[in-house]
């Protein structure tokens, strides 16, 4: 580093010797070579090509951690002060690579194997077999179809949440009390909701709701008919998550500029007109955010279904996640289950990206 010229952003002027630079590079490449050698050795050992090797992959992991640490240290050795600045980001980047990128790539590998936990041979690559199986798997397509219904239900949830937010934004009695009360379902775990409501209150024989219906002369049945069962799942999920949308919308409503609304009233707008022409358009950005986040939550819907119906009757309530759960947990079918999850991830990424693009284009549209 030069000691002349603009030194405004320079903390120290270091002259790093060539030997120090060499040492740093040696450290990085040396540990990298060690890591790669061990990884190769272990891979060959696992494949049965060489007898030398370790019982587990743990030594390779240690070699990776040594390399990662050396890489960080070498930044300072080679680049001095500039290297220290790199250190603000490098460990985090390595962390992300280790815990996100690597597992994703590993999952991608697993998804093209026939790994079944009961198989004595462990994971064996099986080309496109899993993909072909998925293509012909009625359960998976059925679950995807159900997801469309579940996601569409968000629109109804949005309307209810907006209504509740408007109510809680109005000058009503005990407003704070109601705000807390309406938030309570969100604080419950969906597992608790599925047991308290799905398995207890809606239980056909003993459940209080069933008894009321029976008292009124009806015959309670909440999960036998595919449409009703799906609706009940939607309702339980909605009950849990409407407060979440509501609270976001309420925050949006409270942040609206009061002047504009008052101006519309001065201009003689009725309540409905001021909602339709002023409040709703102003709330669009918040609404879109709430809906998108809710859809992302919805795509992960599984716990209520697993607990209450196990996907039944005949797959009518199955979500992709609950199906993968069965495939993976009950059938120990790790390879195929992972492929399904990866494909679902790709579908979600495409869907959400398209949705956001569409929304941003729509929002930018001149009024």
């Amino acid at each position: 580093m030069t000691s002349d010229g603009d030194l405004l952003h320079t903390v120290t002027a270091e002259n790093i010797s060539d030997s120090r630079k060499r040492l740093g590079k040696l450290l990085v490449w040396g540990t990298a070579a060690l890591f790669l050698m061990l990884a190769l050795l272990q891979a060959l050992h696992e494949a049965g090509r060489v007898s030398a090797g370790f019982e587990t992959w743990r030594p390779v992991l240690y070699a990776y951690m040594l390399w990662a640490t050396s890489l960080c240290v070498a930044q300072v050795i080679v680049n001095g002060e500039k290297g220290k600045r790199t250190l603000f980001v490098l460990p985090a980047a390595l962390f992300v690579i280790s815990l996100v990128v690597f597992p994703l790539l590993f999952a991608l590998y697993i998804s093209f194997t026939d790994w079944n936990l009961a198989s004595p041979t462990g994971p064996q690559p099986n080309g496109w077999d899993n993909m072909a199986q998925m293509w012909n798997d009625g359960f998976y397509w059925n679950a995807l179809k159900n997801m469309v219904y579940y996601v569409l239900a968000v629109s109804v949830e949005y309307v209810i949440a907006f209504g509740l937010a408007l109510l809680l934004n109005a000058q009503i009695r005990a407003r704070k009390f109601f705000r807390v009360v309406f938030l309570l379902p969100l604080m419950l775990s969906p597992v608790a909701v599925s047991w308290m409501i799905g398995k207890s209150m809606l239980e056909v024989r003993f459940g209080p709701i069933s008894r009321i219906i029976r008292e009124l002369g009806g015959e309670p049945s909440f999960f036998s008919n595919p449409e009703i069962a799906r609706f009940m799942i939607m309702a339980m999920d909605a009950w849990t998550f409407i407060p979440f949308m509501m609270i976001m919308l309420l925050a949006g409503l409270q942040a609206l500029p009061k002047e504009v609304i008052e101006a519309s009233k001065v201009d003689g707008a009725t309540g409905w007109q001021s909602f339709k022409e002023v409040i709703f358009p102003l709330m669009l950005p918040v609404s879109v955010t709430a809906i998108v986040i809710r859809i992302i939550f919805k795509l992960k819907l599984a716990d209520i279904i697993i607990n209450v119906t196990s996907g039944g009757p005949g797959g009518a309530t199955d979500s992709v996640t609950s199906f993968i759960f069965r495939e993976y947990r009950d059938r120990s079918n790790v390879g195929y289950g992972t492929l399904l999850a990866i494909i679902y991830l790709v579908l979600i990424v495409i869907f959400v990206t398209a949705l956001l693009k569409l929304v941003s284009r729509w929002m930018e549209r001149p009024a």
Partner: protein
Amino acid sequence: MKVELYNYIKAAQKMNRRQMLKGSAALGAVAMMPKSAMAQDSENIRAEILKIPGVGAGSPTDGDWQKVGEMCLGATKSNVAEGEFDGVELTFMGLNNQNLHNFLFRGFLKPWEAYTGAKINWIDLAQADYNARLQQSIATGTVDFDIIEMGAPFEGDVLGKGLASEMPDWVKEQIDMDDYVDYLKAPVGTWDGKTYRVSIDGDCHTFAYRKDYFGPDSITGREVPKTWKDVNDITKELIGKEDPLTGLPAHGYLDPLKGWGGFGFYFLENRAAAYAKHPDNPAWLFDPETMTPMVNNPAWVQAIQDVMDLIEAGAYPTDQINADPGTTAFQQFLAGTGSMLMWWGDVGSSARTSDTSVVGDVVGFGINPGADKVYNAKASAWEETYNEAPNMAYIGWGIYVMATVEGDEKKKKAAWSAAAHLGGKDLSLWASAYPSGFQPYRNSHFRFEEWEEAGYDRDYVEDYLGSNADSYNHKNAAIEPRIPGIFQYYSVAEDELAKGYAGQYGSAQETADAIAAAWEKITDQIGRDNQIAVYKASLGL
């Protein structure tokens, strides 16, 4: 020790259990006793523990389990000195179904912990989570438990991979393995000639029915059904009638139509066994030469059709499509809904002793109903002859010690001592008489007079125990294959059956074909040659 005496000493002297144990150990009386006196003592203990809490005195509680555990410590004391396992920590993995299994083990082992000084950590699992957790531990080499409550179907996975510890001879002696009913003796519990399993349960499905539904003046006016055809006919006839006990709608047979992590498939097996388990052929699930599924042969299709007929007729209680086997037994049959059920034997012990049961006085037992025809898979033809085949579903729970204890003799002895305590001869008698999740599995469990003394009436106990004994000793018992991944087959079958029951397949045959296709895939995935070898070995071929 007599319960009253025990309670009296505790109350009068404010002694805690440990002190009392110390006192009795100090006497050393047990060791000094002649053998005949010890046998006498054992008989007394058996009689005394059966009085805790007593039939009709409500469900046993944690205090009762501890009391029983303590009174049955004699065998442990003869092999283990007090405080011998101080500082040893063991991890125990088991189930928490219906607040039984591990809940009882905790109570039974508490006095054992107090006496030996060992500490036990618990991993509780729901039935539906059990298989997955075990499979994952095996496949990823992360066995984080020292003792496991496990069913024989997993022996191929666990024992075959050398993950368990071989049973020391002193344990065999302590638990008196010769007392086991025959079908639980080797090869069950063994692998390559070595013994691994402390049995705590013997499994078979027996037929439970409501006596007030049958007989000349009853609501059906029929005799107890002998065949599945009769079961179906009666179930249909009951539509629209009223239950004599509860006044709610009467129902016949209760098929669980929802999966149960693979365990639900046993219930279709019950129906299918009568049609599909030919006396001349031990195989009834797969062709042992090729592993081709037999599940879509005419016998199995008939069983599926029988269920579909009842769905079609609207004979089940509302929402039956959402009822798993836990529901049919505990929320329906024992609570007074439905009149016929196939289940493990614990329905019999719970009927009289569980707080949630209302059918204790009107329940009768028998073996799995038969059929008027049986399918001969070798000849691909029906034979018009009466056939019955009790289903030995799951072959019972056992306690296994994992290889994690090898290398630490103190820990190993502690683990085996805990396992032996749970599988003890006297303690198991109590467990088979009260709600525990386990059913009788020793010849000594079938001494009716012991049960009678405990407060059961003779007829009931002969009926209940008789149904178990008849099933265990049946010549045409349908025994489960101990092949790797057996629950994967069952689980995928549950999914396809659910579709079939919901009317998404055109027929029973289509449903069965879908199951067969899914089974073929699993066999290929796990490895056909290996499966064929293990299947043949498990059938004794």
